[in-house]
């Protein structure tokens, strides 16, 4: 899935950081799982990101979102991070990236 952004270069850095966040049940990172929809840089030193969970009452939700926030903060130290949890559109298997499909097929 292609992540929506207004700054492709910075988005690539954020994406690499978020690849460190692994869904504990599936064992796949949240980027390849297709949980991150948008990473914008609306103003200097600010990140706005939209992400979802595989299910709204995912027992791991707090751990995954907390981890995503920590990773972004660690990478963009002086930035204000605004992480939005959204459930529209709902997550589906079609959002898993090609790399993710390969990992799950292995």
């Amino acid at each position, binding site marked *: 899935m292609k992540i929506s952004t207004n700054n492709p270069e910075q988005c690539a850095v954020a994406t690499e950081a978020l690849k460190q966040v692994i869904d*504990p049940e599936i064992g796949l990172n949240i980027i390849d799982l297709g949980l991150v929809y948008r990473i914008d840089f609306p103003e200097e030193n600010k990140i706005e990101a939209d992400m979802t969970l595989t299910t709204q009452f995912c027992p791991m939700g707090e*751990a995954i979102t907390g981890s995503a*926030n*920590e990773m972004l903060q660690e990478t963009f130290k002086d930035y204000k991070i*605004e992480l939005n*949890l959204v459930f529209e559109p709902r997550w589906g298997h079609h959002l898993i990236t090609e790399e993710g499909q390969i990992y799950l097929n292995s």
Partner: protein
Amino acid sequence: MIISGNSPLQKTTSWKVVLPFYMYAAVAFLFSCLLLLLSGDSFQLHYFNPGTLAVTHLMALGWGTMIILGASHQLVPVLIEGKLYSNTLAWLSFIFAAVGIPLLVYGFYIFDMGWPAQAGAIAINLGIISYMANLAISMARSTKKGVYSAFILTAIIWLLLTTLAGMLLVFNFTHAILSSNSLTYLPLHAHMGIAGWFLLLVIGVGARLIPMFLISKYTNEKILWTIFGSINLGLLLFIVSALCVHHHIPSIIPALLIAAGIFLFGWYCRMAYRERIRRQVDDPMKISLLSVAMIALPLFFVVALIALVSVSGSSNELVLLYGFCIFFGWITAIILGMTFKTLPFIVWNKVYHLRSGKGKTPDPKDLFSGTQFKWMAVSYLAGFIVFALGLFLQQILILKAGAGLLVVAAFLYNLNIYKTIRHKAVSI
């Protein structure tokens, strides 16, 4: 950190509510297996005897029901996409059931249906009413109402009917409430619990969780509604035929309707497995899938039993085999598998949710011992086969050997539960 959005993060059920159910069930499973070992000779008598009744109720209530109550407090919010209504009601259901089950089982073991059994039955019913109120209100408040909610709510209604009927049967020993003796109503009470509670609940939860854990693309609500209708209709016809003297329902019809539901669920699981994205299936998932196939065993015995009863009257061995395959086969297999798909995540969340992102943590599957799990699975399967053979041949030594292997399995299960629950935070 700002986490907001159109649907803020929902708090899941507290581990403090869920873990006591898991611990209680693990101990009940060990005691059930020990009781099986100590009362091996009970399985050479008619099934209505103190040892068999005590083991059956400890397995059905202490093991099967307690772990399902615990797990469902955690999993139902995921299925219905709604928060659990009350932790207090969850606690009440635990306390009432935890006190009531040993009293009832003790009453059966000494075959005294006086105050311990009666107080136990009342306490269990209060626990189930608390559980039902909690889940029914949670579902009413949830915006998502569908086939999974229908399975779960109907299963809970059947559970309450089962425990209420059980309470009546206990009181009937001393107060003659019913028109016949309690033994007459035993098949009715047992099947409301087996098909109404266990089967509907396992199918309802499994239909959502099995594709979810396999990351399968397969969904088919139409099949699930057909299964729902088929099992409920079969059970209702069974009750009508058991209660009404003037009926013309052949006993095979309810059995066939329930069998059709089980067959369709088997088909559903097969399709979910075939269309899975995740190729590797872990050991707990393999045991859970095996348990779906194991439903075929009691089905085979019930058809054989109906055939045998219509020809020669009755067969005690087949009744015992039928019950054993349900409680120690299908229900135990699914719990042994699903425990290690759910408990490590609950404990992982308890230990690591505030540490996420602050260094690498173990995976949930690292919280229990895979080697112990494998040995548990081997001793369980061997024990199940040996004990079933002992029942068929009515040989006490084979029965004791099978029960001994099941004790080993239960002991390893308890060790692994203890290891998982006692896990302390480590960084890797």
